[in-house]
């Protein structure tokens, strides 16, 4: 026991049970150790360090991620140390338990002493002992002792002291004053509250599940498999008395299970009720950030006569018995999608239609191989900052680009391309484009292809023009018609020239302008490259322009007598060439058009049963109360000995002791002494 916690005459000594001292030495020293300050501070520091590890090292990630980060060796070591799930690790729980035991020991050892100290006035102190207190003073008072006794009693009361009096044989009267006993209660409250909070937290921990796992009754599932295939060993029944898990329920559907994250996998918790989600609503700010989301849920249980209907939202859960149902997230619940897949290498525009939904995988058999399309997500809004001109025009800071689908296309080797396709065109520099983004590495940003919209704001013209370029026979036919053979060249040369143009068009279609440059660099001697390249580019653009002009004529956009095309069609041509130039970087030759959709959202609920919560709250309340008593109430003792000297004078010896060694103690004592000295 340290000196500051001891009262003057060591109530601890008195409090000590005589039987205890007969206990074997070792028993006592274990208790000593458990209740020692050094252990307590060590445990506090250990807890803090463990917590630091737990926040700096990302917890509960997939094993592979850790192996990538730390290498197989260290990942294994860290895993065995439980560093990837610190807060559930055995040693962490052990530290907590030790803290509990240590605090409990400390409280048990100190309580009798402190309780005694709260009640004890120490009025039996001898004059000599009074003189040896930390603060003392002596003086004479010009009044008879009985009068002094009355007045000083009043002063002590005015200063908030309660006191006891003791009359010695020689007539000396000793006041033993005491105030601020609540301070000791503060110690008890804070330390008992720690124990209570730890017990509450243990109720809410997964100790029961840990026990079952250790005894082989329970095994977490790690594979992403459908509910009905999850083995019984990964299920937890209604007998689990505390849990916290989550479930996604699509609108219109219901669920009576919960997924509990557990180590590297999860467990399935059976619920004693069923939750149906009638509707999910989300509102957005004009920045596109979610403003609020809420679900209309219906809870049915065998014991209920009538189902409970309630709308829950963030910060407004539904409490049913000792279960709490929270709105925690939202997502796509399998939005129905009608998709048109345009083949990008076909000489004809004949898209395949598929009806699918988010979270589904569609096999695609194409002439260029078999693929799988995985539809990952659907977003109704894509809000981006508006351009400066738009801001001026509409006054709005944000702009909605409309719905998108996010999906992956995977080839037979398993390589995947991820796409983000917009359903509606967006305006760029006054022209409308359909944006489609592609990437092969998830951490990279999307690279966008801009498909120009035609006069009907549709992609139709683009796909038709592309089909034309994909059709060498048609290209050759048009070129022959546009450039009839003149008499000046031979049949062979003419054929060669047309063939060259047609092949350049095909090369451009397949590899873009870079393809032509590459071809020249590989096949033409260095000194002639520039000349040939200029010639090829000239021929390519002549051929493309010619094809486009013919194409427009066929569509009736250009009258037979016209020699030029309008500005819109000119710009469109440039944009189309820019898009086609990049199409060879677009992955498998398909474009997915979102034709229509029916949005189905899902709501993410979190459901908890936490019997320890109220225990923890109760402990917390005690803790706050206790902390204030400890800090803002000081246990103060004062002694005033009144020794009758003559009929008219009394000798006064004053002393004081404070359980905290603060500068105020001294000034307060001086003040009280001054007050008593001036007693009239």
């Amino acid at each position, binding site marked *: 026991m340290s000196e500051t916690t001891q009262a003057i005459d060591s109530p601890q000594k008195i409090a000590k049970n005589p039987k205890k001292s007969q206990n074997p030495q070792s028993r006592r020293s274990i208790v000593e150790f458990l209740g020692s300050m050094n252990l307590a501070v060590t445990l506090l520091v250990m807890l803090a360090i463990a917590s630091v590890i737990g926040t700096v090292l990302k917890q509960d990630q997939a094993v592979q991620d850790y192996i990538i980060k730390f290498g197989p060796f260290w990942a294994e070591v860290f895993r065995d140390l439980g560093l990837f799930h610190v807060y559930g690790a055995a040693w962490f729980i052990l530290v907590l338990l030790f803290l509990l035991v240590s605090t409990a020991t400390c409280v048990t050892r100190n309580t009798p002493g402190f309780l005694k100290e709260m009640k004890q006035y120490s009025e039996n102190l001898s004059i000599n002992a009074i003189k040896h207190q930390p603060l003392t003073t002596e003086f004479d008072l010009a009044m008879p002792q009985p009068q002094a006794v009355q007045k000083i009693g009043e002063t002590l009361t005015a200063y908030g002291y309660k006191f006891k009096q003791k009359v010695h044989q020689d007539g000396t009267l000793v006041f033993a004053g005491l105030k601020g006993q609540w301070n000791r209660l503060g110690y008890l409250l804070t330390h008992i509250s720690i124990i209570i909070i730890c017990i509450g937290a243990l109720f809410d921990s997964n100790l029961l599940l840990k026990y079952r796992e250790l005894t082989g009754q329970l095994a977490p599932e790690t594979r992403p498999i459908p509910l009905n295939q999850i083995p019984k060993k990964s299920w937890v029944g209604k007998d689990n008395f505390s849990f916290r898990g989550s479930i996604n329920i699509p609108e219109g559907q219901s669920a009576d299970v919960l997924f509990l994250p557990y180590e590297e996998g999860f467990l399935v918790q059976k619920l004693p009720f069923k939750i149906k989600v009638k509707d999910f609503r989300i509102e957005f700010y004009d920045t596109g950030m979610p*403003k609020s989301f809420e679900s209309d849920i219906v809870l049915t249980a065998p014991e209920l006569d009538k189902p409970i209907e309630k709308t829950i939202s963030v*910060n407004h859960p539904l409490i049913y018995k000792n279960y709490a149902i929270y709105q925690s997230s939202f997502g796509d619940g399998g939005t129905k999608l009608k998709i048109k897949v345009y083949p990008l290498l076909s000489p004809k525009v004949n898209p395949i239609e598929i009806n699918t939904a988010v979270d589904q995988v569609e096999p695609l058999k194409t002439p260029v191989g078999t693929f799988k399309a995985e539809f990952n997500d659907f977003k109704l809004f894509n809000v981006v900052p508006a351009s400066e001109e738009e801001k001026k025009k509409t006054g709005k800071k944000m702009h909605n680009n409309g719905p998108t689908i996010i999906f992956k296309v995977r080839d037979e080797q398993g390589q995947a391309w991820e796409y983000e396709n917009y359903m509606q065109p967006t305006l760029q520099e006054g022209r409308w484009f359909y944006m489609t983004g592609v990437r092969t590495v998830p951490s990279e940003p999307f690279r966008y292809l801009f498909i120009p919209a035609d006069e009907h704001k549709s992609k139709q013209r683009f796909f038709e023009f592309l089909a034309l370029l994909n059709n060498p026979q048609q290209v050759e036919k048009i070129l022959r018609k546009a450039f009839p053979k003149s008499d000046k060249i031979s049949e062979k040369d003419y054929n060669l020239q047309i063939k060259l143009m047609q092949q350049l068009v095909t090369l451009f279609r397949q590899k873009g302008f870079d393809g032509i440059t590459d071809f020249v660099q590989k096949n033409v001697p260095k000194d002639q490259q520039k000349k040939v390249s200029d010639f090829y580019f000239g021929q390519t653009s002549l051929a493309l322009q010619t094809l486009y002009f013919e194409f427009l004529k066929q569509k009736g956009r250009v009258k037979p007598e016209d020699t030029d095309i309008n500005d819109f069609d000119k710009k469109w041509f440039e944009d189309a060439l820019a898009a086609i130039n990049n199409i060879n970087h677009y992955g498998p030759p398909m474009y997915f058009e979102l034709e229509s959709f029916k949005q189905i959202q899902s709501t993410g609920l979190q459901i908890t049963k936490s019997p320890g919560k109220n225990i923890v709250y109760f402990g917390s309340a005690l803790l706050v109360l206790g902390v204030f008593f400890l800090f803002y109430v000081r246990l103060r003792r004062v002694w005033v000995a009144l020794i009758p000297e003559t009929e008219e004078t009394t000798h006064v010896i004053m002393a004081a002791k404070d359980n905290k060694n603060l500068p105020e103690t001294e000034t307060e004592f001086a003040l009280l002494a001054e007050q008593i000295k001036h007693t009239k």
Partner: protein
Amino acid sequence: MNTATYDPKLDQNRQPKLDFKSPRNLIWSALVLLAALLAWQTYGDLMNTFEKGILTGVTAGLIVLGVLWSRVQILLLAVAGMTYIAFWSYQLHGNDVKVQDQAFFLKFFVSSQTATMWMNVLFIFAMVAYFIALFKQSEFVGKVATFLVWSAVAFGLTGMMVRWRESYLINPDYGHIPLSSLYEVFILFVIVTSLIYLYYEQKMKTKALGGFVMLVVSAAVGFILWYTFDRHANVIQPLVPALKSYWMKIHVPANFIGYGAFSLAAMVGLAYLITDKLAEKNPNSPFVKAMPSLEKMDDLMYKSISLGFAFFTIATILGAMWAAEAWGGYWSWDPKETWALIVWLNYAAWLHVRMTKGWRGRPLAWWALVGLIVTTFAFLGVNMFLSGLHSYGTL
């Protein structure tokens, strides 16, 4: 109570008595009540039961605070006056938030942006003045320094009040108390730290410590300036759904009393260590003479950490209760929560070695200083380096 022997004149240094019956305090109480009623009447529709409860609590709290510490009365009257000018000026211009760049008072004094800038500047001036006062031994400059801190606090509080209003003017959907983003809580931090310091300065006569405390305040001001000019964090953003709760109004201020008090303790620790070092060399140097005694600084450190610990305890518990309501669990080992626990354990250990082992002075001063690093990490580092449920205020 009044006895023949009891002489109140001798009693001036005792704990402050709550004397509600002096004319000044009666007027003060009436004014606070009036302001609360006005707020209730004007904004009552926007408040739910809990928020009305908070308003009631704040009213009572302000009355008590003003009676306990009369200078707060003047501060809050100044804040109320400036806030009124701002509201009135907005009203005059059709409540269009854009007039803050045109209307005279708003542009130069009381729009939230300008008031905050005044606060920043005044804090820096205050630091300089405190140090001049310390080295030149000038009592007058010392008074000016204290006045500058009070003015900075007044401007800071005005800036917060006006920002609160502005958030509604931009878009009623956006409206919220400015305690939600890292930028906003930094302003709260400098205000709270300064107020706690001012309290102890008056009570314990520790003007010489002002410059040291203003070091940490000025560092925070530097952050606010960088955050404003480089990141434009001063732009008012709407709240994410999880933050839309009355809990924010109590959890955040409680937390910042904790952070503020811990920072104050760290700066006192710094002053302690410097003084201690210099006293070793020359106990009679003018600097050592000008500083408060080592015992006084040690005591202030303890008082400040106690205050911080008490409020940090409350704040953490309130945070747990909020988490239980918003995320479905009172404790999730989310990095911010966990770091709050680390901070709390750190100061619990500090208090234990002081109380039960009787440590004093130098080691505790070092510990308080290191504690500031831990606290800063919990406050700022978690948002910068760790992700979690609390990642609202990411840099």
